[in-house]
Each structure stands twice: as C-alpha cells, then as structure tokens.
C-alpha cells in the first residue's frame, strides 16, 4: 500500500520540535486588537452595559463579540477606577489594553484555586475585566471595591486590584497593582513593602471630586509605574 496519503514533510525546528519545548514566548498585542478582545461589557464588572466595547473603531457587522450576561448584582461598594496610560515622552497611549483581576467585596477570588470556605464567594462577581484606552489614553472600569486577601505567611494584604498592561510596543504583559489611598493595611502590605518607598505612589489610586479612583500608568521615564516580576 502506498504511503502517499500520510506522507508528511521532514520534521524541522518549529513548534513541534521536542528539543525546543518550553514556554510559548510572548508577542505584542499590536494596535488592532479592538475587534478581537474587548467584548461588550468587558469593563463593567457590575452591570449590563456595553462599557469596554469600541464600536467606533470598526463596522458594526464585524462586532462578533457578545455582551456580558451577568447573573445579578454583586455585593459591595460600586466604584469606578480610571487613569491615563502615558509613554516615556509623557504622551497619551491611545492603543493600550488594560485588564483587571480582583477579589470580591469579602476578599474571595472567583477561582477554583481560592478554596477558602470561610470567605463567601459572590455568585454575581467574576472579578475579571478588560478595557482599552481612548484617544486621550484614558482607561475606565466599573467594579466593586475588593476586600482584603491573605498574603505570605500570616500577613493580610491591603485591598488591591491586579492590572495587566498590553499594547503596541509592549512585547510582554506588564504586571502592576492598584491600591486605594485610604486602603486599610497599605502601610503593612507585603507587596507594597517590597517597593522602594519613593515609588509606592505609582501604585496608589487617589479619589477624585466625582468619586472615581484615579491611577495613571506611566510606562517609562519620570514617575514610571512599578511593574512586577512575578
């Protein structure tokens, strides 16, 4: 019988090369992610708006990403967090993507890897969101103020939201955190404590007159945001 039907080209150095097996390297998200990643409602972790969608950037019939379908209203204090993403020349970055990951109001993550029975899960809160910056470099989310979660040893972390920054010119995810200026435990937070004191402010959101929490993300240069090596 002929092997013609199953004949494959000779193997080569590529994704299937056993000698190269290891982490798939990161690449930039590029400038054109808006029709592929930010689903409608991605930036609204509370309600059922289409916040996070960018319908002005491409024709409506190419919006194949759905609207979030929340199951109900999460418990806790509703907050808005926002800020500008700036580059090393102080210019707004109009094509960055920001993701957030956070605990619910009681300090529990909606994740199978947070198995603490003593802290109540919130069936209506996932805690993951995605937004992109506008022409002015501003990102914006509506969410719940998170509770405190444990840190290493017997420590307790101050309330915080984990942020990921992606963009054209960003070859791998930049990981940072947002803390609250009035957050309980900021002074003893095990992660903030590892950050040089003069740079801690880059992680601490301040309250604006309209009640929203504001944190600029400076990718490079003066006032550079602290990014983490996890």
């Amino acid at each position, binding site marked *: 019988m002929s092997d013609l039907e199953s004949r494959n080209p000779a193997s080569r150095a590529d994704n299937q*090369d056993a000698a190269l097996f290891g*982490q798939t390297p990161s690449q930039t998200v590029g400038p054109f992610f808006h*029709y*592929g990643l930010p689903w409608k409602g991605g930036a609204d972790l509370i309600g059922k708006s289409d916040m996070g969608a960018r319908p002005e950037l491409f024709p409506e019939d190419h919006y194949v990403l759905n609207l979030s379908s929340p*199951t109900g209203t999460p418990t806790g204090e509703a907050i808005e967090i926002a800020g500008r993403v700036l580059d090393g020349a102080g210019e707004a970055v109009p094509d960055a993507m920001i993701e957030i990951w956070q*605990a619910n109001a009681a300090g529990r993550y909606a994740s199978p890897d947070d198995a603490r029975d003593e802290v109540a899960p919130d069936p209506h809160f996932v805690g993951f969101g995605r937004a992109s910056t506008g022409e002015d470099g501003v990102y914006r989310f509506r969410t719940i103020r998170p509770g405190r979660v444990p840190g290493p040893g017997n420590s307790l972390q101050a309330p915080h939201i984990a942020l990921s920054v992606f963009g054209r010119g960003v*070859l791998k995810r930049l990981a940072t955190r947002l803390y609250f200026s009035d957050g309980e435990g900021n002074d003893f937070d095990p992660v903030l404590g590892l950050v040089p004191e003069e740079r801690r402010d880059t992680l601490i959101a301040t309250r604006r007159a309209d009640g929203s929490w504001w944190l600029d993300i400076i*990718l490079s240069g003066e006032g550079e945001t602290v990014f983490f090596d996890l």
Partner: protein
Amino acid sequence: MTDSLAYAHDDAGAPPSRFPDYRSTVLRSPSLPLVRIPQTLTEVTGPAGCWDRLMGSALADLTTQHEGAPLGQRIIVTGHVLDEARRPVPHTVIEIWQANAAGRYIHGKDQWDAPLDPHFTGAGRVVTDGEGRYRFVTIRPGAYPWGNHRNAWRPAHIHLSLLGPAYATRLVTQLYFPDDPLIEIDPIANAVPMPYRDRLVCRFDIGITEPNWALGYRFDIVLKGRDATPLEEEA
C-alpha cells in the same frame, strides 16, 4: 495556602520588554528593573469556567461568520494547551484575531491599501477540551507592511490570547507559518531569541489536513507551569 505552588518565571525564550529594533518599545517599556514579588493568592488565581457569561459562546470557525465565504486559503489550526510539565490545560479560553488573506484588518485604523473582505472579520474564540485540545478554522492571513522602518513587512501571523489558570499565566502571542522568509527579518519576531523563536512557528501536518477542504497546521501553546516552590517559602 501552604499547599499552593508558585508559577514559573519567564524562561530563556521570553523577549525583553525593550527591543530597540522594534521602535515603539523604546518609549513603552520600563527603564527601571521590575520589582520581584512573591506570588500571593492574587497571582495564582484566575477566572475559570465563565467564558460564555463574559464573552459569549465559542466562535471556532472564522470562515462562516458572514453570508458568503471569505477569500483565501482555508486552514485548520489545532493543538494542545500545555503547562511546562506537558500537563494539559483544560477548559481554558483562546482568543483569536487576524488580518484577512490580503493582510488587511477590519480595524478602522488599518491604513494598508489592500482590500477588505466583507465575508471575513478575523475574530474568534475557542475553549480547550478536557485534554487541553483546541481547534479552529480560518483563512491563512496575508503579510502586511507597517511603519517601523522603510519597507517593513510583518510575516503572516495569527494573534492569540490565553488566560490560563491564573493571573501569572496570562499570555498574548502570535503564531507564524513555516517557510515564511519574513520571520527572520521581522523585529517583533526577532525580539524572541533563537532558537526559541521557532516555538512560534506552526507545523504543516497532512494528518490534520482534510481532503478537498482545508490545509492543517499544528501549534501547541505552553503556559507557565507551577514549580516546586511553595508560596510560603518564596516569601
């Protein structure tokens, strides 16, 4: 928390954040060293099993989203999502976006003078099965020029985004095709040092190819795995 294990750090294949040949990295990458932190509950958890609720149902065939068929070479892309110990990563989402066969994105800011295809959006989403397998159908994207330098062309690529089990495993990457001469001279692909760059090149496979229908390519995606250091010791 004592039985939780931390996820691995970047391995030797990770690109640097600043790679001056890729010009826009210069003002968009940190100039100060990253601050090493222990992985806490925040970093080792992540959303799971909520993809439909967040993003809607799967879109595994990018060639059937409109009334007609898109132009271009129909292809199947399949493989496994694995961790570094070759364990499958089940029920995890892969988001997909790409240019059309002419190398043009439907994005309004794409100024490349190649035709749009009314039958092709180029956005999809799949979830791995219990064994970490995924599969999607699309058309092979074209190469396109970009403004990095005079006569700069991106090799044909498919953008992929994975969350994996935790904040620590988040990955955005690009899949390239075998025998594309542009890979070797592309500053974005080149940010990944050799030989690891080849991890981003899929393999043509006649076993995936379907007679009279579509060419098949295999591409496994490897996420950071949990190493042997318990969280408490790292701290």
